[in-house]
């Protein structure tokens, strides 16, 4: 079977650009009436021709989101367990060249941090590490998952790319979901953005979600870091990646994350900053293309923005977030991976959601065989 990288090769940059540039208003309106959108339709909805129809897109996206998700939004929170990192991603606060102090939590610290999160009432947790295979090994991540699993209904990971066997190791430790941001689907840009470190291997990262699916991961998340490449390119490839995974792994729940690049420690000029209107076009087009897929919006976005994005298709938000390692149960003098804009606690988030007519869902799924008490 061809992998996603081979499939993506059938959609070269020029082809994507050509379809997007030649899209017409008629194509936009027709795509908004279709029950099932093809990749070409998605591209049309992301194109400049669709921009004047943003309200139409929003109405359609709202209708689809209500139909498939109702008025419920899932809450989760990230737990950074190590920011030691050997990569030099030009846009990231954990860049190995940044001289900030680093922290690497031991198992007791991880459990203490996780306990605070569990006490906030959250049931879905996402473990994150920097890319330091020797220190934050797959076994370390698996041990962390195993240690905290009794406190949570769902444990996800957002870590460096693993092999299929390593994903299996995590699944055996109780991990049920993995998120992998490709950052950009432009291989040349990717190469420039990642001057050194294991992350430089574009293909290994691109095909990581598929390896996780083959290992039996229940749920996958993909995403590009918006702002790195031209909007239309990475926006389209992200949707195409999720769509392809769903078609080939129909038993796996595939979602999309929509991070927009923001300031961090170090200096990086955002090459293609995505404005709010374009950001809304992205989310609503994604909802029309993938009506049943979860869309995750992190606390990079402001409370104001997140509250308005929820009716348009966002189904999963973080709450009570810290992007620094430690800092909840233990002292943290280190800085975070990125600056969060929405600082709301779980209680505040729940109340805010209720205020706009949505229910915060703490737990939407639990493996019936799990050890969680």
């Amino acid at each position: 079977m061809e992998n996603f990288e081979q499939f993506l090769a059938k959609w070269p940059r020029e082809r994507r650009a050509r379809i997007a540039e030649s899209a017409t208003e008629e194509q936009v309106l027709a795509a908004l009436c279709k029950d099932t959108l093809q990749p070409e339709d998605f591209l049309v909805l992301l194109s400049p021709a669709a921009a004047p129809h943003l309200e139409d897109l929003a109405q359609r996206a709202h209708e689809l989101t209500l139909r498939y998700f109702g008025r419920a939004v899932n809450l989760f929170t990230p737990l950074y367990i190590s920011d030691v990192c050997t990569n030099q991603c030009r846009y990231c606060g954990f860049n190995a060249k940044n001289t900030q102090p680093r922290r690497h939590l031991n198992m007791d610290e991880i459990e203490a941090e996780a306990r605070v999160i569990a006490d906030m009432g959250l049931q879905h947790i996402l473990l994150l590490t920097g890319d330091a295979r020797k220190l934050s090994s797959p076994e370390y991540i698996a041990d962390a998952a195993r240690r905290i699993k009794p406190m949570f209904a769902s444990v996800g990971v957002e870590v460096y790319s693993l092999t299929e066997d390593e994903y299996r190791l995590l699944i055996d430790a109780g991990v049920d979901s993995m998120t992998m941001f490709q950052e950009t689907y432009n291989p040349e840009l990717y190469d420039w953005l990642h001057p050194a470190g294991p992350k430089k291997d574009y293909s290994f990262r691109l095909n990581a979600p598929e390896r996780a699916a083959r290992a039996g991961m229940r749920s996958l998340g993909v995403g590009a870091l918006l702002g790195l490449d031209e909007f239309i390119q990475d926006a389209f490839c992200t949707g195409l990646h999720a769509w392809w995974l769903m078609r080939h792994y129909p038993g796996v729940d595939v979602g999309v994350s929509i991070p927009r690049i923001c300031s961090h420690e170090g200096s990086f000029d955002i090459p293609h900053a995505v404005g709010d209107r374009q950001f809304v076009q992205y989310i609503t087009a994604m909802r029309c293309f993938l009506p049943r897929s979860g869309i995750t919006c992190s606390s990079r976005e402001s409370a104001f923005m997140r509250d308005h994005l929820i009716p348009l298709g966002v189904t999963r938000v973080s709450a009570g977030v810290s992007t620094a390692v430690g800092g909840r149960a233990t002292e943290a003098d280190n800085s975070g991976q990125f600056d969060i804009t929405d600082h709301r606690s779980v209680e505040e988030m729940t109340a805010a959601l209720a205020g706009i007519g949505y229910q915060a869902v703490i737990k939407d799924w639990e493996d019936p065989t799990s050890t969680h008490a």
Partner: protein
Amino acid sequence: MEDKFILGGVELKSRLFIGTGKYSADNLIPAVCEASGAEVITVAMRRVEKGQQGIVAHIPKTMRLLPNTSGARTAEEAVRLARLARAAGCGDWIKIEVISDVRHLLPDGYETAKATEALVKEGFTVLPYINPDLYVARACVDAGAAAVMPLGAPIGTNRGLRTKEMIGILIDELDVPIVVDAGIGRPSQACEAMEMGAAACLVNTAIASSADPVRMASAFRAAVEAGRNAWLAGAGAVKAPGEAAEASSPLTGFLR
């Protein structure tokens, strides 16, 4: 716009498949073939009776035969019938039909998938006739089926696309041609299936049992072509999406 229809490695010009059953007289078949424009025609396999003439004599030599395995109740019987059909020297295409419930005549998905797997391994070009069940269809495709043939309604009922939603799912999800088989009673229904994105339709009873099969064959030909063209053209907006927008409060008003 180029619109190639490749099935089992063969390029077909017509997206209408016809059958040879239930005609008032078999000598109508050549004219029906001509009027339908079809290239693929189904036949069944039965014991010969003394003095009985087979159907092949009535089928123009230019047609491609698609023998079915009707009469089979199990995968093993379907495999046996397929081998017999191939021995007749008319190619290696086979429509798998396994029916063990003779009251409703619904295909047995499990046995059909098993037979598909076995026959693909023997080099047949396999077209399984199935209920439009995504899991059965996937099993057949994974086993190497060249197409899947979901039923629109129980066989011979002429009731149209009763399984429309399910066929739509197969069209969306599978990468092989979807040939709607069974149940199509009128040209408008064949047209509807093609508009949805079906690759082809197989029509037998509706043509054979009409008062004028030759004329009905040409009607189906036109309907299948019309539906295909509509699908290729891409339907326009059914309603102006703006209508809905006016009815509710704006969702993008927060963007300055």
